[in-house]
């Protein structure tokens, strides 16, 4: 099973790193779409279906929390799992992201394993492409 993923970050370098981690982790990616902020992401979502979104918070034009708000209000997009990757990791900020619909939260700086573990946990598909709901470690998120 392969899937489409969208990576949203105003840092091109950070998008490249996350993309590389996902790829070398063995997740089967059909398409990786990149966007520099929430507004650009919403535009690209009109043309492409994605199975998961990995988004930064602190971005110009539309930040990650505003994007979560927009996605949650749209019946077409509200079920797309969103993982927040952010330098801002106070418990209040994490709770705010979860309340707005985020399914995972990764604090920067991160290790490759952090991305792999949360992505696996959120989408329920292991690096071998098999659906593994029963084997998911529910205690492994960074909440």
């Amino acid at each position, binding site marked *: 099973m392969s899937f489409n993923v969208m990576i949203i970050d105003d*840092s091109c*370098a*950070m998008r490249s790193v996350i993309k*590389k981690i996902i790829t070398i982790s063995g997740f089967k990616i059909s398409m990786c779409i990149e966007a520099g902020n929430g507004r650009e992401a919403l535009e690209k979502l009109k043309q492409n279906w994605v199975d998961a979104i990995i988004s930064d918070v602190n971005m110009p034009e539309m930040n990650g929390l505003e994007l979560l708000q927009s996605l949650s209000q749209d019946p077409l997009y509200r079920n797309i799992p969103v993982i927040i990757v952010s*330098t801002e*990791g106070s418990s*209040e900020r994490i709770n*705010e992201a979860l309340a707005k619909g985020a399914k995972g939260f990764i604090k920067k*700086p*991160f290790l490759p394993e952090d991305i792999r573990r949360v992505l696996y946990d959120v989408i329920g598909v292991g690096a071998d492409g098999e659906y593994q709901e029963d084997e998911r470690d529910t205690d492994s998120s960074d909440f």
Partner: protein
Amino acid sequence: MENIKKMKEILTAAIFEVFEKMFYVFSEPLHTNGETYHMKSTISFSGPFTGTIQIFLNRMIAETMVKNMLGLEEEEIDESIMADCVKESINMICGNFLRKLDPERVFHLSIPTFETISENISQSKEGKNEEIHLTFASDTGNMEVIITAPGMMK
């Protein structure tokens, strides 16, 4: 004074974590200054405290950061990707520092800025009461981080 010591320790830990995890750059505190740097990035934060954090780097350490983070060869590195990595480093240092300082409360971070420079910042700014200067040495060059946050140092 105790507060400043604690802030220095937290900021040092935040810097080490960012550089080791994201850029595979290992450094150690340097107790001299007077280095000439080639670039700087600045970020502001507001919330329970307000302030700015700046990072100053020479070109060699910035190139190493790009190479290590993105796996690029020297000829593939240009100014824009270097600026991007340096801005991301100060963004992560700031967030990590504030998170370690107060994990409960929310701070708002600005979008980082980047400038190329050629100045000896240690000598020009040293001695101001409301700043903390930290200098680090790595195999590929030195860097300096300055935090200015008057409310936090009282």
